[in-house]
């Protein structure tokens, strides 16, 4: 009791400077500021332990590793803002990877094979949306089911093996190893998708309505917003972006593979979105925060790998991070600890 009264003294003296600091934090976003600080902390710690960590070559490794999960995290952000969840993105990525490689083997036409993969991704996303909206299945259950089903579908298509080899084609090589203006093609793809989704969310009526659906779906419906159309479209978007991730996966490894490289991506995507400030109840979040969180995850994972920490521990760490991120979210929203969380 005495300590609190002692501390109350100086606290009252500086409300003005504190308010100014509050305004600054409000402008950047407290969540984003914490993420930037965390990234700096991680970089400094690993940079001191192992100077090779900050080498340009290693930073490129981090960037490459972040791209695929980053794409899924960005689109997961949109799904979560709607108040839904898509766990099946990793499996859809695997399907698209297999499809693109098989189609390329059959046709030797890079563009056509990528186009086919994107169409398949679109269909997978539409299936998710239709199951959820018209089947009235909870999004978590529906996409948990399609997580298993799509993975099985990819394994059926490929017989569980790596398919084709694509790195004999210029376009595939360009995606895999090429660069534009000094930045790898992979980064450009992620930047383009992230920017497009950011603009969609912040500056169009579509984005505004997506936030409205996540914030109060009854209000959105009474305002005449066709919620069903939006939800199905958002899942279709998730399918398409998953397919782009699958194409990149094929380009990076040279093969189409049903599971290796794509399973576990859903966890990364959801963790990044939650860390980045998306409220899982919907209505809050943005592309910027998610990307920052993705960079943090990538930097952390790379640093742990460089220092020979077992991937088993990395999985534990990632799971723990997701829980911590959501706990912080719920505390901030003032959720009371009674019964099941909303």
């Amino acid at each position, binding site marked *: 009791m005495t300590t609190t009264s002692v501390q109350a003294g100086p606290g009252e003296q500086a409300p003005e400077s504190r308010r100014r600091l509050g305004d600054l934090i409000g402008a950047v976003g407290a969540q984003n500021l914490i993420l930037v600080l965390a990234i700096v902390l991680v970089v400094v710690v690993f940079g001191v332990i192992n100077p090779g960590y900050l080498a340009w070559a290693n930073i490129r490794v981090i960037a490459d590793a972040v791209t695929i999960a980053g794409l899924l995290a960005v689109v997961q952000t949109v799904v979560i803002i709607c108040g839904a969840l898509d766990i099946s993105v990793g499996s859809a990525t695997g399907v698209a990877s297999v499809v693109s490689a098989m189609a390329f083997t059959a046709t030797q036409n890079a563009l056509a094979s990528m186009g086919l993969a994107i169409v398949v991704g679109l269909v997978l996303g539409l299936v998710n949306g239709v199951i959820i909206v018209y089947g009235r299945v909870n999004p978590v259950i529906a996409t948990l089911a399609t997580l298993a089903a799509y993975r099985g579908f990819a394994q059926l298509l490929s017989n569980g093996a790596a398919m084709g080899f694509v790195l004999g084609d210029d376009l595939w090589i360009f995606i895999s190893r090429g660069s534009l203006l000094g930045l790898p093609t992979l980064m450009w793809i992620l930047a383009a998708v992230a920017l497009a989704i950011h603009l969609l969310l912040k500056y169009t009526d579509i984005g505004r309505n997506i936030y409205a659906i996540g914030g*109060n779906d009854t209000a959105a419906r009474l305002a005449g917003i066709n919620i069903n159309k939006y939800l199905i479209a958002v899942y279709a978007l998730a399918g398409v972006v998953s397919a782009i991730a699958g194409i990149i996966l094929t380009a990076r490894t040279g093969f189409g593979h049903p599971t290796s490289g794509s399973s576990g991506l859903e966890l990364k995507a959801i963790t990044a979105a939650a860390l980045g400030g998306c409220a899982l109840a919907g209505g809050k979040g943005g592309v910027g925060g998610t990307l920052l969180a993705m960079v943090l995850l990538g930097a952390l994972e790379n640093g742990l790998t460089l220092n020979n920490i077992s991937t088993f521990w990395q999985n534990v760490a990632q799971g723990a991070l997701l829980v911590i991120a959501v706990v912080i979210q719920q505390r901030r929203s003032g959720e009371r600890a009674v019964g099941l969380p909303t």
Partner: protein
Amino acid sequence: MSQGPVLELRGIDKSFGPVQVLHDVAFSVYPGEVTALVGDNGAGKSTLVKCIGGIHPIDAGEYFFEGEKVQVNGPRDAAALGVEIVYQDLALCDNLDIVQNMFLGRERTSGLVLDEAMMEEMAAKTLAGLSVRTVKSLRQQVSSLSGGQRQTVAIAKAVLWNSKVVILDEPTAALGVAQTAQVLELVRRLADNGLAVVLISHNMNDVFAVSDRIAALYLGRMAAQVRTSDVTHSQVVELITSGRSGELGLRNGNGAAS
């Protein structure tokens, strides 16, 4: 006012399965007046409002708007006519700000992108037209507003669209004394601006404070639609609880309105 009704319903029937909720209801709403719609729980007030708003299709009866017979098949039809409903507490998104809420579902765009400046200006103009001074910033999130301010935003949202009829579903039910007074003042101002206002309320004080006419529903029938100045407090209570009061109200049993 000698003007004809802007909105008129005749012989409305509405059933949900075997339950007939509305029986041969007639209802008129006049421009520049506040019409209070009263009735006990289950009398059919909400159903009648939802029929007007196009949320429930009517089984039988005629819907006239500005003297013309119209078909209302959905909320969009009603909104196109200029009929807006303000729901008690369901119609705002907490995670959006005031301007965003007022334009919800009908955002103004220039080209592909949202025209934030224009929307903010229109919202400011609308709120100023209603003499609303209680909100600090139009970019405040709705979650930070008080109950009265939220109701104000909801009403302003309905007025924004050059609407002709505004229906308020128990706008004061969850409010304190001072906020209730604020909202009622706003309701009166809407009518003074020439709008036809329908006020659903359980509170007789509110009804007598602002309404020009009172329509009383009793068990799905329109017991009476009278001028507020012609009736007393206790007569209205009688109409609500027994469907009749002296010469006013339903004749015994046969359900014909006087």
